[in-house]
């Protein structure tokens, strides 16, 4: 922090510490730095790959709306003959083969793979809609409250307290019952309308700190309007916080949606959601366990990959994050190569010699 305000005269200690890092990011824009850091985060990269793969699989296999996909079933046909006894999955690992119903069939003969894909589509859609709606509202309320302060801040924060007071799952259940049977999108938008509270508090905090900075004063002196300052000057500086918490919000949103659908307050038949599938099929656990495994597995995969992406974004946006090898690795490297130690001591600036003399 101290170096950023006074880059001309860095202290001797910081000089060594920052030299390598500065070299690494020299000449790059903030976006490029963040992208670099993000793609270096293995967990986040794996999460991103898995999430994109899941989206592609879910969208192309059964298609969206009127467009049909490449998979042979739609998941709604009943009365198919059971391929395996009881409708067990036809997927085998040796030899690797999919068969007619890779994830199995339910008691009506419907194809579970197609149903899981439909459910994944619904759950992903709900997740993204909640994420977008909640982020937009949270950013608007948080930025207005944090930028203008005073009465508007008090009023908006009281309103946020009001929404926080009642547990999310309770409001979700009431909204689900209210909009029950309408459609997934209405359900998702209504959930987005109550999930913005954490985000608005974070954004408000960021704005309260950023509005005191010099560049905001400069913009104001130059005659920029409040709206321009909020959206063009402050918001881009708060984007890290917003993106990270929006990602984490989405991972909790998918769990909330599936939980509500499981309780029967969310998406109801004939629409398919992963939580609703688990609720429908939990009685069949002892006879047809595959009906229960696949939807749950997809929830876990989606939530896990979104969480990893969020973690990677947090690390990428956080300027304090440094990649430091562990003490043990350093010690090993030192032992293995004594010249490394010499190299390290010689790169120290001469001023540190004074300290050694003390």
């Amino acid at each position, binding site marked *: 922090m101290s170096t950023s305000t006074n880059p001309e005269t860095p202290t001797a200690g910081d000089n060594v510490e920052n030299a390598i890092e500065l070299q690494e990011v020299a000449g790059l824009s903030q976006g490029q730095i963040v992208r670099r850091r993000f793609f270096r985060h293995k967990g986040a990269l794996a999460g991103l790959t898995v999430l994109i793969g899941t989206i592609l699989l879910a969208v192309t296999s059964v298609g969206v709306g009127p467009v049909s996909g490449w998979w042979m079933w739609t998941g709604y046909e009943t009365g198919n003959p059971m391929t395996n006894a009881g409708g067990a999955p036809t997927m085998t690992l040796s030899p690797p083969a999919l068969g007619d119903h890779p994830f199995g069939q339910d008691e009506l003969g419907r194809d579970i793979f197609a149903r899981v894909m439909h459910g994944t589509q619904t759950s992903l859609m709900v997740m993204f809609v909640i994420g977008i709606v909640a982020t937009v509202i949270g950013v608007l309320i948080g930025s207005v409250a944090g930028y203008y302060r005073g009465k508007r801040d008090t009023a908006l924060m009281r309103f946020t*307290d009001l929404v926080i007071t009642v547990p999310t799952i*309770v409001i979700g259940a*009431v909204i689900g019952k209210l909009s029950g049977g309408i459609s997934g999108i209405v359900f998702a938008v209504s959930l987005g309308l109550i999930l913005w509270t954490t985000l608005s508090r974070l954004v408000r905090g960021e704005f309260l700190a950023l509005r005191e900075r010099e560049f905001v004063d400069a913009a104001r002196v130059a005659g920029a309007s409040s709206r321009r300052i909020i959206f063009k000057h402050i918001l881009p500086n708060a984007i890290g916080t917003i993106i990270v918490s929006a990602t984490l919000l989405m991972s909790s949103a998918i769990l909330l949606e599936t939980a509500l659908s499981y309780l029967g307050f969310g998406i109801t038949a004939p629409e398919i959601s992963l939580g609703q599938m688990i609720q429908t099929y939990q009685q069949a656990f002892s006879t047809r366990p595959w009906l229960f495994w696949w939807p749950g597995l997809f929830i876990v995969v989606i*939530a*896990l990959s979104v969480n990893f992406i969020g973690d990677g974004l947090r690390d990428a946006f956080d300027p304090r994050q440094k990649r430091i090898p562990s003490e043990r690795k350093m010690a090993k490297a030192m032992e293995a190569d004594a010249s490394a130690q010499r190299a390290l001591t010689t790169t120290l600036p001469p001023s540190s010699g004074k300290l050694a003399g003390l």
Partner: protein
Amino acid sequence: MLSFLIRRLLAGLATLVVALFLMFVLVNAAIDPLSDLRESTAPNKQQLMAERVEMLNLDTNVVIRFFQWFGNVLTGDFGIAWRSMQPVRDLLTHAIGSTLQLVTAATILSLVLGVSVGIVSALRQYSGFDYAIIFLSFLLYSLPSFWVAVLLKQWAAIGFNDFLQDPVIAWSVILGISLVAGLVWSLAVGGRAARRWQVFGISAAATFAMFAYLQLSGWWERPQIGPILLLILGAGSALAISAIFAGLHNRRALYTALTTVAVGLVLYLPMQVVFDSIDVTNLIILVFAVVAVGVGFLIGRLYGGPDWGISARSGAAVAFIMGGLIYIDQVMQVWPPYFRALSGRPIPTFGDRTPNLGGNYWVGVLDAFTHLLLPTVTLVLIAFAAYTRYSRSSMLEVMSQDYIRTARAKGLPERTVVVRHGFRNTLIPLATIVPIDIITLIGGAVITEAVFARPGMGQLFVRSLGDSEIEPVMGYLLITASLAIIANIVADVIYASIDPRIRLDA
């Protein structure tokens, strides 16, 4: 401080009333008390509907009904749930009792486990253990709780009951468990290769010995702690507590802890007689617990020395553990008859007690324990992940502060740096999260309770909403919303009292 409290309480009350009003309107719009009549084929359908509208006062405007309801609540009348005709106040009392049982155990377990694992993980940052814990906490955090709960119910409960029918673990499985335990401990303790192997060997051997003992002594059929295990467990925890919180070089604290263990052992047999001869209730147990903690504290005080406080606290903690072990031993003694009474399938998957069980206090406690087992595991798995992440990041933040460098520079042993300077400051952010968490949980682990059919708060809410009964739903919301407001105030006050930089009067 006082003016802060008054201000916050008034603002909270205003928020509460507005929130309740909004929820009343929302719930009223969401439910349809007439739905079952609409679909009925009774010939006097119109008359029945009219009667119900009359009974529930549905003709009146919702705003007026809210103020009627609110006025009644102010006089202490929560109304009745019209389907079952039970007073809402009774329903709520039962539900809170059941939920508190579940939440207390789950919160304490997940806090202790989560915080300790998170801190160890932070101290071993970028090690294999750290990466494993990060992955594990991400995985647990992403698990849908209803899925885990159903899985435990359908799989773990049945599997464990089958196991108890014929409690023999194959030796290869025991060996595997021991090797895994050894690996986890060696990664957690860390250090140089020789030390890792040493830790691996010791912990694997200890785990193996423990399972072998349990198997060969027929422990699964007749579980008990008994004097020998009491000695081992007590001495182990005494050593651990004094090593972590006082350091083994602090002889007074060590001797306090060991003396407390000795006192506990001596009292083991007399306590059996005491428990047999009196009619035990929860209150008596509480008194015993307080006395035990007091005795431990006194032992530490009597050892004296310049820093007797630390000895007294170690003594109190060890005394609490010893008392707990004796209590658990007493509960375990009723296991064989309980096992027979439930015809050999003791782990239940629903409810919070076995109906018409009979038996004394200890049977009741054991019955509550077995019913708590699976829901608690579900809650702990998920809360554990959150607390691990909080405490890990908080500890990392604290350990990079200047005061930690100062503490190291002035030559303090690493234990003191970590426990006194690091650990305590790590708890500050947790202290603001935990009260809110606990109180949110009192509002019901809605899903866990629904899956295991525990008649708690969450279950009350879900069922009443499904049954279109507005009074219990609003009673539930009144309690959870007030608790949420109180929790936020409590968190602020705790924060201000442990962090001197925060002042509430400003």
